[in-house]
């Protein structure tokens, strides 16, 4: 609420400024029924373009909406449009099409019929960033209605941090013994030292040890198997 209040202050200040500089009265009522009905009626004109698409492919499903469905216009075969019978006021003009995206434009019409177009800004409602009039509206491309499915691929799987965390240590465990000669007594001593460094408190039960104990209870056989393989390897050498 406070935010809106602050904006309101800003708005009032800006309001005064622009009313002076443009000779436009922004406070003019919008499409209020009754108060303007016997006044003059004006025409909002413009042209809509979808780059790369022929007009006949999209104009039959598109409409021009002025301030919701207050006034409705249709597109001509060349992409131009006109909305007739609009009294003076300030309106948001929007081209709606189920296939293509168009940005809305605010059009101000004075009681004398002077027109100007500006960017729609709902927060700073009096900010004027002029747009060409008659309106030139270019489509920003097709609408994106759909979310992308998360597809599964090997690269996604491998680049997953969890997988990386699992695969890298595995590689180290498998490859390191092959690279480093474990038979070298000096080397072994060094490694043991470094292991002790990593494990500062020998009293504390190691988590990995705990786990291996827990899981090897039922499958002591396989545990034996790994031991055996090492001895075999030793024998071969």
């Amino acid at each position: 609420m406070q935010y809106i209040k602050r904006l309101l202050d800003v708005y009032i200040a800006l309001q005064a400024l622009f009313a002076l500089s443009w000779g436009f009265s922004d406070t003019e009522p919008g499409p209020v029924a009754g108060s303007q009905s016997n006044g003059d009626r004006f025409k909002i004109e413009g042209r809509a373009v979808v780059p790369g698409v022929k007009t006949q492919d999209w104009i039959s499903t598109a409409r021009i909406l002025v301030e919701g469905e207050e006034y409705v216009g249709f597109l001509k075969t060349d992409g131009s449009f006109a909305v007739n019978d609009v009294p003076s006021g300030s309106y948001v003009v929007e081209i709606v099409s189920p296939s293509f995206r168009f940005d809305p434009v605010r059009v101000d019409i004075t009681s004398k019929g002077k027109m100007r177009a500006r960017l729609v800004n709902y927060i700073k409602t009096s900010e004027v960033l002029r747009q060409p009039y008659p309106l030139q509206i270019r489509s920003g491309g097709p609408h994106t209605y759909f979310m992308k499915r998360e597809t599964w691929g090997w690269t996604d799987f491998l680049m997953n941090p969890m997988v990386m965390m699992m695969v890298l240590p595995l590689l180290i465990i498998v490859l390191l013994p092959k690279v480093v000669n474990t038979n070298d007594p000096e080397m072994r001593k060094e490694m043991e030292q470094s292991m002790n460094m990593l494990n500062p408190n020998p009293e504390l039960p190691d988590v990995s040890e705990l786990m291996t104990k827990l899981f090897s209870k039922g499958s002591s056989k396989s545990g034996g198997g790994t031991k055996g393989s090492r001895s075999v390897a030793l024998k071969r050498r």
Partner: protein
Amino acid sequence: MAWLVVRLAISLSLLYTASAVFEDQVGKFDWREQFIGKVRFALFDTHSQASKKLLVATDKNVFASLNSRTGDLFWRHVDKTGPEGHIDALLMYGQDAVVVVGNGRLLRSWETTVGGLKWEAVLDTGSFQAAALIGVQDFVKYVAVLKKSAISLHDLSSGSQIWVENLPDSDTVQYQTIYSGGNGLVFVLGFVPSSHIVIVEYKIEDGEIMKKKSVEAAWMSSLENSCAVISSGNLLCVDQTTQSLYTLPLQSAEHTEMRQIHLQTLDLEVASGFQPVLTSTQPNPAQPPLAEFFLQLSPDHHILLQLKDDLIAPLRDFNPSYLAAFATSGEKTVAAVMTSKNDTACSINLFSADTGRRHLDTTIIYHMDPNGGKPNRLYVHAFLKKDDSVGYRVMVQTEDLTLTFLQQPGRVVWMREEALADVVTMEMVDLPLTGTQAELEGEFGKKADGLLPMVLKRLSSQFILLQAWMAHLWKLFYDARKPRSSVKNEVTIDTLSRDEFNLQKMMVMVTASGKLFGIDSKSGTVLWKQYLEDIKPDSIFKLIVQRTTAHFPHPPQCTLLIKDKDTGLGSLYVFNPIFGKKSHISVPALPRPVLQTLLLPVIDQDYAKVLLLIDDQYKVTAFPSTKNVLQQLQDTASSVFFYLVDSSQGKLSGFRLRMDLSTELIWEVVIPTEVQKIVAVKGKRANEHVHSQGRVMGDRSVLYKYLNPNLLAVITESTDIHQERSFVGIFLIDGVTGRIVHEAVQRKARGPVHFVHSENWLVYVYWNSKFRRNEFSVLELFEGAELYNSTVFSSLDRPHPPQVLQQSYIFPAPISTLEATLTEKGITSRHLLVGLPSGSILSLPKMFLDPRRPELISEQSREENLIPYAPEMPIRTEWFINYNQTVSRVRGIYTAPSGLESTCLVVVYGLDIYQTRVFPSKQFDVLKDDYDYVLISSVLFGLFFATMISKRLAEVKLLNRAWR
């Protein structure tokens, strides 16, 4: 920069909350039907033989092109509602269609193949009378528009105005018709009631009045239907009181009086009280009309007549005949006449227009729907066959707005139910269980009768299940051999049964024309329809489900209350919503206007909920009103309260039921009508479940919700519409005690206000007239950190007022409707469904409308998953639940829970109907559509084989070691 961060935070948080459609889900569980409304003008494109176009203009201000072979839309243009978009006339010439819109305000020419506008011309104000194409020397070049006081001529290719002329004495003379025979002159016909006819002759080139004459016609009351121009400029009129035909050559100067021909001389007579109708045909606007014409003497009597050498001769008498129409193909003009064959069918025959002779083998049999209305319009499309004979197809429109397109010998090519363009209200009803399912259910329902019978029963039901499963397997196997296309099994009323998750339901739709529909929610097929005759236009409908399908063997029961708009008198129509059959239950007579209805949770011995109807003397009628019900009502009367709204006096009053079904006034709230008027009053939905009593805060305490089931939201609008002084008022009133729980005023705001009232919150949208934008505001009510009475809620014992939190947001688009999703148990987070004028339905997470959204992010707010406050509400096209299937003129959104907690069924109705499912918290209780069965099974198998292999290897190693 800060903005950017907030935006980023929002978009990130959305990744996890928003439900969206995936591309492969298109059409899987959603469907859309497009409608046009009641056809007022229909023209077949006869420009070329191969053309399939059928141009229609309807009372819904829709101009569309239909494919006459399939009934599908080529394109459709929906204009503004109300008189400003009203289509006054439709003319077609060649590739172009000229439409007069908005009481003659706009003249539009459409390129009919593309569906784009060719030109648009603004005409002067003045009420529209007639429009006609004007031809010169065999070419149609102009279009003339006749207004009350002026006539204008426009060029057909550019729309530029050639000339505009004021009509002489337009304040006394009513000009109604234009005629041109292609000879360079335009005739404007007008008349002074009970006095004379005025004929003004204009020159096409410059609009100069060539001649003006008035002819005595004291009997004249209207030109439009009782007069026609036939055969090179002869005005022909028919009058019921004098039982005569009158003719007058338009161009000749010497005739100053109309020639009277008594109908008796032709052995004809107009039925008493019937306004006779003349129908002529002018196949080419550049040439004079034919000399033959139809005269309708009574609702079912037409006669084909011919004017020849100033004599009128009957060609053929069609008695009885319902409808007659001319059609032209090439040089040949034919007349199609619909006559009654028997009670259920009509036959349509083709006659040659110039002789009245019947064409052989041209009969089309039209079978009338026994639950539909009578045919009332006939549109004929004639074409030349290869052997140069005339073939034809017809489109029949009935009173219940069904369009049927038929071809010989009576094959229905397509059918459109245009009544569905105006759905007023709807309900979704669960489908019944199948026989086997019901059998199983029945086992649990009955009381135990011994051990052995129960075991036997169990066995037998298991056997039935096995049988059903085998049958299902067999069907699968059988279908697998057939080609794919033929497998698509049709949904019929007999194969209807509830699916596992209760996702398929029966949509019961009530339309403004008084036609009821039962539509399968899965496919959109109309399963039954029932036309209720004698329903006045603008009646008010209320549909109530009194008994659901859950009470087998009692059939489900729906009650429709039809209330006349002027008198307020109501009537009840009771029917079975699954089969559409009218129930034979005696319905209470309602001699007094009904003010309010109330569906009580009290049920009678047949499990039908009791409906209370309150009349204008505050007397209550119960339906059903058996002894059992009355007894129950007496017991519960002291706790039955209801409210009445009188918006003309700004009065809201609460009543309590007495034992003798009279009522007593308990409270009254008066909102002064000089300042503001009540625009809407809404309670909460009765079938809504709230799962959690409170919200867990960041500091682990609980903020309890104020869940008052009796709370009414009253919206008022100021009578002063000046933008500085207008306001919108919101009152939250307890319906039992009349206590105003909360009151809020939105200054510098005006309606239309859309709002949703649910759980402990109210969301409303209004127009901020100062900043010219739509704003959302949310009110949430909390009891505080402690519940006053945690077991039961009582409106009478509420010492503490609730804490009210409110926040407002900017919504960067206009809104046409607002509704909230609804699920079975209320566990799933809520979304708001916002209907936009563009036809998209936005699914906005309620998370965005949370008055506790903080301005500054703190640890606690992050823990609660609150999105930081941002004044502007985001709209993302990914949230459009109907992607590019836009729904024109959304009138209402209906939400219903399904058997799955994650899934909410949504029906959007307006000019179109769209049905879909939404998953506000994603599909957490079912496997995803893209669930990778291959991956999971390959991983499982891989692991299995890996263990097998490693086991084997280990054994080998062990053996090797043992050998060592």
